[in-house]
């Protein structure tokens, strides 16, 4: 963060925001209120306008302010305690946990929903938060581990509920609306119950303000001042999670307020944590009130239903992109686990053992399947023709995509020194989806050819953006990733809005995004395999850069590496790898995130061996995922892309759960 100039005062912006928000709200309610006052003189027994004002509009506006304020406070606390300007309630998987809980309950124990949707959501959030704590308990509840665990659990819950939605879209239509945060109200009950719950959190929040302020120092210094860092962190994360879970359970997921409000407060000059918390809270409330009031005024104009939460994300993502240049991203020491013994597997060992294992996997996946009666069977030679037509191509395509993404993930994690970096967040996939979405809604239904053309164009567009960014100066890879995160969130929001309106085309889009492989032709599989072979061979070339770059800027420059050029070329390579894989398997696999971690857990460290290892690991995960997708719910075929996330996320959780020696 840039050092704020001394004259910058947070209250100036806060007052401006408050005036704007109140002004908009007044415009919204002015007419009904005037009528209400007029009708005092001549009261009617039943006045529909008055009822709507008293029991819909006013509770909704109050709810907007309260929810915005609570989410912003939660975000401010999380950013402080996790020392990450990008931490937000969403980062911790709080929303995703609630979403999965609602999906599962709706499908399997609908009577529980009768007790209260909010209770179910709260339980889901609580369980996911506890799971985060459970996973990081052996890592001293370190900030980085919490972020990591939150991300993985969010990923898993997200993939699981997406899968359920795809299988049972008619029952789970409510999930779309819940997931895009509608503030629509019909009584004061939800507001009052949220107010009561939040009131419980006020005293704990006040109690942790001062200890949290000390976290501007590093852990050791804080400990030296006599503060139990671990306990403080657990308490603060728990309080922040509770604040946001209360809101989520009341109105659904409202993205970005918790992220953007604290950032704005900071940029407007709130320097110390106490100030930041207070002004974030005020600004968050005003921001959501402003958004919602504006939306209600506009809603009179259009017939489409637009949930507020989706709008905050649509506005918030570009805002984050705009703020990016002003955000100072501190270079963090890489926190990857260090193996205690030097198992220096040679490149040839990795390639030979890996390839053999992979081929065995492919053989099993090709031969083992289920017949028309749903019975398990091993294909015989007689069925060779059928296997070659329908099974082998999809496995080859999925494995190729996995290899491409695994390689891209390895490159990105090495270049950024960030173990959460993955091709899925690079923005290339996001660009492809955005283009397909636009094409789908501008031109109506799309045939497959034009859909792929649009997808390619979108991916290439983001690539072009990267090139422009890269040629301007030496790129900060973290910022490129953050830009990708913002772009991906924007896509999520757009798809969320479309889905919430119930438009059947949104379902087409979701289907494409979830990564289907069933119809792959032999030619398509060959093309995918060829692309993987060529691009991975190219990726072998810069493997020395991958060893040097993680050392940091200074040493890298000192041995004569041009930082700008090498980073740009590597990011570009990762983008091309991703762009080649996305049309095959969709943007949601997260194989690129997982493959490098699998390789590391296997004790492979040499850059060249890592490149091959990640490619093989990615291909292996996708092969397993494709097999599971084909056979698990037979005759129903699951989307391979989503299944890959489901297969890989628990694996990452197990990795996180291992005890790690901190250096």
């Amino acid at each position, binding site marked *: 963060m840039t050092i704020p100039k001394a004259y910058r005062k947070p209250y100036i912006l806060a007052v401006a925001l408050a005036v704007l928000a109140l002004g908009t709200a007044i415009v919204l309610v002015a007419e009904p209120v005037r009528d209400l006052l007029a009708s005092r003189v001549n009261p009617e027994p039943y006045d529909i306008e008055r009822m709507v004002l*008293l029991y819909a509009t006013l509770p909704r506006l109050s709810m907007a302010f309260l929810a915005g304020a609570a989410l912003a406070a939660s975000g401010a606390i999380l950013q402080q305690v996790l020392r990450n300007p990008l931490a937000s309630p969403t980062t911790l998987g709080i929303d995703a946990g609630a979403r999965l809980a609602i999906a599962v309950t709706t499908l399997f124990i609908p009577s529980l929903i*009768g007790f209260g949707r909010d209770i179910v959501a709260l339980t889901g959030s609580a369980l996911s938060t506890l799971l985060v704590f459970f996973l990081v308990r052996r890592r001293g509840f370190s900030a980085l581990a919490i972020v990591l665990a939150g991300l993985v659990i969010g990923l898993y819950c997200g993939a699981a509920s997406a899968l359920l939605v795809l299988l049972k879209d008619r029952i789970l239509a409510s999930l779309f609306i819940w997931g895009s945060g509608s503030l*629509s109200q019909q009584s004061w009950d939800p507001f009052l119950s949220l107010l009561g719950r939040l009131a419980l959190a006020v005293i704990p929040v006040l109690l942790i303000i001062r200890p949290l302020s000390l976290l501007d120092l590093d852990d050791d210094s804080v400990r030296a001042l006599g503060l139990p860092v671990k306990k403080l962190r657990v308490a603060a994360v728990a309080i922040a999670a509770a604040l946001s879970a209360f809101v989520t359970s009341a109105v659904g997921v409202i993205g970005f307020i918790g992220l953007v409000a604290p950032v704005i407060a900071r940029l407007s000059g709130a320097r110390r944590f106490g100030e930041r918390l207070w002004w974030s809270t005020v600004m968050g409330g005003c921001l959501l009130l402003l958004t919602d009031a504006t939306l209600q005024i506009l809603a009179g104009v259009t017939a489409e239903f637009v949930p507020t939460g989706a709008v905050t994300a649509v506005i918030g993502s570009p805002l984050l992109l705009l703020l990016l240049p002003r955000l100072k991203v501190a270079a963090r020491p890489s926190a990857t686990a260090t193996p205690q013994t030097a198992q220096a597997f040679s490149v040839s060992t990795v390639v030979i053992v890996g390839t053999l294992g992979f081929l065995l996997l492919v053989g099993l996946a090709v031969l083992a399947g289920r017949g*028309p009666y749903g019975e398990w069977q091993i294909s015989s030679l007689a069925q060779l023709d059928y296997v070659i037509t329908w099974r082998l191509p999809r496995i080859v395509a999925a494995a190729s995509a996995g290899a491409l993404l695994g390689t891209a993930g390895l490159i990105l994690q090495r270049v950024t020194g960030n173990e959460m970096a993955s091709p899925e967040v690079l923005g290339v996939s996001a660009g492809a989806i955005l283009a397909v979405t636009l094409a789908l809604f501008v031109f109506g239904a799309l045939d*497959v050819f034009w859909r792929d053309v649009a997808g390619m164009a979108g991916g290439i567009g983001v690539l072009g953006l990267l090139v422009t960014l890269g040629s301007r100066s030496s790129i900060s890879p973290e910022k490129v990733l953050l830009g990708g995160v913002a772009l991906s969130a924007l896509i999520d929001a757009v798809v969320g809005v479309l889905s919430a309106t119930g438009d059947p085309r949104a379902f087409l889009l979701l289907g494409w995004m979830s990564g289907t492989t069933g119809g792959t*032709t032999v030619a398509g599989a060959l093309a995918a395999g060829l692309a993987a072979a060529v691009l991975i061979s190219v990726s072998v070339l810069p493997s020395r850069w991958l060893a040097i770059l993680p050392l940091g800027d200074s040493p890298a420059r000192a041995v004569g590496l041009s930082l700008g050029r090498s980073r740009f070329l590597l990011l570009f390579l990762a983008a091309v790898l991703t762009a080649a894989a996305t049309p095959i398997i969709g943007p949601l696999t997260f194989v690129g995130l997982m493959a490098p971690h699998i390789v590391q857990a296997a004790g492979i460290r040499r850059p060249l061996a890592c490149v091959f290892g990640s490619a093989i690991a990615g291909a292996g995960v996708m092969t397993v995922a494709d097999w599971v997708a084909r056979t698990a719910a037979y005759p129903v075929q699951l989307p391979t892309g989503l299944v890959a996330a489901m297969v890989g996320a628990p694996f990452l959780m197990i990795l996180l759960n291992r005890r790690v020696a901190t250096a």
Partner: protein
Amino acid sequence: MDRRQFVASVAALPFLQQRPRSNPPLRVASMDWALAETMIALGHDPIAIVAAADWNRYVVEPPLPRGVADLGLHPEINFELLATLAPDLILTSPFVQDLEPVLQRIAPVQRISIFEKSAVPLAQPREVTRVLGDSLGRTDAARSLLATADQAFDGYRQRVRALHPLPVLLVNFIDARHVRVYGGAGLYQNVLDRIGITNAWTRETNYWGYSTVGIETLATDTDLRLIAFEPVPPDAQSTLARSPLWSHLPFVRAGHVSVLPSVLMFGAIPSALRFARLLVGHLERLSR
């Protein structure tokens, strides 16, 4: 369809094929429920359809014949299974057209649009019936299905005239705060128009004939009858009971709120008939 029925049907396949017959019926797989229900109504059962497992929950009528294979779900139907069944013809609709390049590798594909805006009520479902009748070599069956349907609708129209019903508001409760409300060019509106019932929802809908709104949007001071399709979420009733806005609505105070079984929204003539029968039957029961 349960597994046993399916096993029985597949086991019977070779036998069916061997049966001496001058003109064996086309083996047709349908990727769309509206097309499948029309086929069944024409007396030509499909051999496989998508999402067969959910049929009894959302389509209900006509009942799915025994032995129809379940192809799983769009976006990724079970191509392996479909290829094994070796159909002669595959029916698709614009909703699933992204599957067509693959389906064409298995059998010829015919795409039939089930949803088009039109000035005449039910024009597109009728067109679907005719087209399907021609494709399946059952032109006469199609003609007689349409004649029977017309007769039935005319009957419903007369019964409605005798009832003088209130305008109806057709909704699906999505959760305790939101509904999907139907009108526009949708199947329900078409049926209402055909049998002479007024829709209380006159505001805009999306292209498909529905609109998602907060429940406060339903607020009105005129009386009407709210008809909610099943399923109603378990928390809707209790939550709404606590809402002053809801409980003071004229139609709520008058008790004009009913629940009807589910009817396929993107359906064809059979679903239209089902809806008309359920609705008119319900209104008659209320007036007694």
